[in-house]
C-alpha cells in the first residue's frame, strides 16, 4: 500500500494544484474581460465596481472613495474633476461591509497609487461578528485574487436575456428622485453622548490606517449629510476616532449650510441618501476640502493624457443639465 507522503505523490499533488491555480487564473482573466466587454451584464450587478476598478488604467487615480450606499450616492467623480481636476474612483457599494471594504482597498492599491483614500464613515457603525467577519475578509481576498469566483455567472447570459441597466458616469449612477426628510427637529441636536463602534470594525479600521500609511496614502474621513443616519452621537465618536489616529475628519452634517444642501431638493429618500443634485453639491464641497487638506493633489485638467476625463465631464454636464433643472425647480 502506497503511503500518502511518498515523494511521487507529493510531487503529483503539487503539480495538480499548480495546474489548477493556473487554470483558475486563466479563466479568471477571460471572465474579467468578458465582463468588462459586457457592461450591461447581469453578473456585474454587485460586482460591476470590481470590473470598473480593474479596468482603470494603472496609476491614474488620485483619490479612492470608499463607503457604503452613502458614498455610492454622493460621490460623482466627474464633478470632482470639474471642481479640482483630480481623478477619483468610488470603490464603494450599497450595503458595503467593513469586511468587504478592506480587501477592495487592498485591490485598489495593487493597481493604483492614490494620494488620498476618502472614507465615508457610515459602515463603521454596522455590527461585524469577529468570526464571520474574518471569514468574509478571507472570502473577499480570495475572490479579488481569483475573479472567477466573482464572475462565474457570466455563462448565464448565453441562456437568459440581459436586463437593461442605467449608464454609469465613471461608476456614478444618476438618481433623480426627490423625497425630502420628514422631520429634521432632532437632526444634530447637541449631545455629549457617543455611539459605540463594534470591536471588529475598529480592528479593521486600524488595519486600514496601517495599510494607508504603508502605501503613503492620506486617509481622510467624512460623513455625508444624512439626517437618517447621522447625529451628534456618531459625530462625537468619529471626532474622537479621527483625533486618536491624527486624521482629517469632515462631517457634512455640521456643515450643511456651507455645502449648500437644500433638503427639499437634494434628498433621494427621506434623508438617507443624496440624489443627483445633492451629490453634485457634496462632491464639489468635498473636492475643495480635499484640496485644502492635501495641497499636492494634482490638477490634470490641462494634461492631454487625461483628455478622456474632460470629454466625459462635458458629456456628463450635458446629460444631467435638464435633470438638475427639474430637481431644483429652476
Amino acid at each position, binding site marked *: 500500500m*502506497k503511503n*500518502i507522503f511518498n515523494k511521487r505523490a507529493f510531487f503529483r499533488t503539487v503539480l495538480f494544484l499548480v495546474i*489548477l491555480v493556473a487554470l483558475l487564473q486563466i479563466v479568471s482573466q477571460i471572465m474579467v474581460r468578458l465582463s468588462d466587454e459586457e457592461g450591461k451584464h447581469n453578473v456585474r450587478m454587485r460586482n460591476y465596481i470590481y470590473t470598473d476598478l480593474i479596468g482603470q488604467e494603472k496609476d491614474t487615480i488620485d483619490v479612492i472613495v470608499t463607503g457604503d450606499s452613502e458614498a455610492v450616492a454622493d460621490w460623482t467623480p466627474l464633478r470632482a474633476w470639474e471642481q479640482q481636476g483630480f481623478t477619483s474612483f468610488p470603490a464603494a457599494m450599497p450595503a458595503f461591509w467593513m469586511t468587504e471594504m478592506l480587501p477592495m482597498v487592498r485591490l485598489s492599491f495593487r493597481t493604483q497609487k492614490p494620494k488620498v483614500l476618502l472614507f465615508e464613515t457610515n459602515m463603521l457603525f454596522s455590527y461585524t461578528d469577529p468570526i464571520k467577519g474574518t471569514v468574509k475578509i478571507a472570502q473577499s481576498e480570495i475572490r479579488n485574487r481569483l475573479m472567477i469566483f466573482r464572475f462565474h455567472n457570466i455563462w*448565464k447570459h448565453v*441562456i437568459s436575456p440581459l436586463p437593461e441597466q442605467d449608464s454609469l458616469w465613471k461608476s456614478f449612477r444618476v438618481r433623480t428622485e426627490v423625497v425630502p426628510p420628514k422631520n429634521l427637529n432632532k437632526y444634530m441636536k447637541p449631545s455629549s453622548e457617543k455611539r459605540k463602534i463594534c470591536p471588529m470594525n475598529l480592528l479593521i479600521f486600524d488595519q486600514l490606517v496601517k495599510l494607508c500609511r504603508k502605501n503613503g496614502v492620506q486617509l481622510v474621513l467624512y460623513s455625508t449629510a444624512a439626517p437618517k443616519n447621522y447625529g451628534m452621537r456618531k459625530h462625537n465618536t468619529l471626532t474622537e476616532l479621527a483625533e486618536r489616529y491624527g486624521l482629517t475628519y469632515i462631517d457634512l452634517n455640521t456643515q450643511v449650510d456651507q455645502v449648500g444642501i437644500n433638503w427639499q431638493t437634494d434628498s433621494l429618500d427621506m434623508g438617507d441618501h443624496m440624489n443627483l443634485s445633492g451629490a453634485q453639491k457634496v462632491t464639489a464641497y468635498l473636492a475643495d476640502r480635499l484640496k485644502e487638506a492635501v495641497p499636492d493633489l494634482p490638477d490634470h485638467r490641462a494634461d492631454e493624457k487625461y483628455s478622456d476625463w474632460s470629454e466625459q465631464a462635458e458629456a456628463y454636464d450635458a446629460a444631467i443639465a435638464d435633470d438638475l433643472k427639474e430637481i431644483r425647480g429652476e
Partner: protein
Amino acid sequence: MGYNEIPYLLVFLPLTVLLYSICPKKLRKVLLTFISWGYFILCSRYLIVYLIGTTVFIYCMGIRIGKVGEGIPENYEILLKKEKKSGVKDPALTPLRKRKALHHALMLITVIILFGILLVLKYTGFFASLLNRAGASLTAPKFLVPVGLSFYTLEAVGYILEVYWKRIPAERDFFGIALLIGFFPQTMEGPIARYGDTAKQFTGETKLFERTAEDMASAIMRIFWGMFKKIVIADRLNTVVANLYDGSELPHGVMIIVAAVCYTVQLYMEFSGMMDVVIGSARLVGIKLPENFRQPFFSQTASEFWRRWHITLGAWLKDYVFYPIAASRFSKDLGKKVRKKSGRYAAKLATSAVALTPVWLFNGLWHGPQLNYIFYGIYYLVLLLLEQVIDPARDAFYAKTGINRKGKGAALFRILRTWVIIFSGELLFRANGLKAGIHMFLNLFHDFGISRLWDGSLLTLGIDGADWFAIVMGTVVVFLYDLMTERGFSIRECMSRQKTPVRWACYYALIFAVIIFGAYGTGYSTVDLIYAGF
C-alpha cells in the same frame, strides 16, 4: 460553519488533515476529539457543554451497565423459565433478579435522561402549544438547541442499548465514545453512526482506513461531487421552493406538482450531497462512515425507499424500535391471539401495525416539533401497512393477468408509482404547517393550468431560464450517475483505471463545474443545511 462553506472546505478541513497526518498515530483519536469539539464550538459555542456532558454521561453509564450486566449469566432467561415450570422459587436466583432489575433500571434511566434532554430542548414549545390549543395557557421557555442534538442523541442511545443487550462490551476508551457521538463530519447531519460502524476505527481496535494518494484524491473528488449537488442544484432550487411554499399565496394545480418535485429534488441533492462531503471528509482522516443513500429514486416500493434513503436513520429505527417491539411479549401474545381468531394474514398485519406505529411516529417527530412531520410519519405508516394489506391481492392480480412482475415495464411502473408516493410525502413534509399541506393537496386539481409549465410562470419563481437550465442539466447528470451505480458500474473505479491526464481532466472538469455553475455570489444567498435544522 456548514460543510458547504469556504471556511470549512478551505481552512478547517485541510488544516485538520494536515494536523492528523503529522500527528503520532497513538494520539490521533485525542487530536480528532479536540478538533471535533473545536468544530462544535464554532457551530454552537458554549452549547458544547451538552455534547461533553452527554459523552461523559454515556461513558460512565455504559461502563456501569456493562459491569452490572457481567454478573447476569447468559442463560438467565432459561433459568427463569425452569423456575417457572417447577413452580418453586429458586433462592439462588434472587440476587440475579435484583441485578437484572438494576441492569434494566440503569438502562432505562440513561435512555430517559438522553431522550429527556432532547425532548426538553427541542419539543417543550411544541408540546406547550399543543396543550394551549386544548385550553391551557402555558408559556414555554425557549432553549438554545446545540447543533446535531437529534443525531448524537440517537447515537448515544444506540450505544447504551447495545451495551445493555451485551452485543458489545462497554467502551473504556473515553475518546472512542467522544468520537462516536461527536466526530466533526457527522455533527450536523449524521450519518447516525452506530458503535459497530465507527468506534473500532476510533479506538484503534481495527487498523485505521489506509490512506493512499489515490484514496485521498477520490475522497476530495467525492467532496466536490457533493458540492456539485448542493450548490449547483439544491441551492438554486431553494429560491423556487421558498417562493412556492412560503409565498403569500399558496400554489394550485400544476404548480403544486412543481413544488413537490422541486422540494424532493432539493432535499435529495442537498442531503445526499452533504453526505458525500461528510463521508469524503471522514475518509481524509482515515475513517469510513456508513453510507446514507443508495439510489433511492430507483425504489419500487415505499418500504424499499426507506431502505435506500437516510439509511442510518431507518436502520437505527429498525434495530432499536421495530425489533424490540416486534420481539416483545405483548407483540407475540397479540400475534397469537389474532392468529387464533382471524388467521395468519390478520396476525401478520396486527403485529406489523404494533411495531411500525411507534417507528413512524418516532420518525416523524424526530424531524422536528411540527405537526406536519408527525403526519409525514403517519403517511408512511399507512402506506407501509397498505403494502402488506394488498399483498395477497397483488399476487392474485399478477397471477390472473399473467403480467411478468419482474419485467422491465412492471418495474418502471412501480418506480414511477413510488415517485408519486415520495413527492406527495415531501409536499406534506415541507409545507408551511399541516394546514398548508392539506390545502395544497386539496388544490391539486383546482385550476390545474398545465400551460404554466411553459408560459413563463416558472420564471416568476425567483430564478431565470439559465438557472432552470443548470438545475435540469445538473439533475440529469446526477440521475445518470445514480443509474450507472444502480447497474453496478462504479465510476470511481473506472476513474481509478484511467491514465493520469484523463483522470485529472475529469477532476478539473468537476471542480470547474462547481465553481462556474454554483449558485453563490452576486444574486444568490448562502443556503443553510436543511437536515442540520432537524
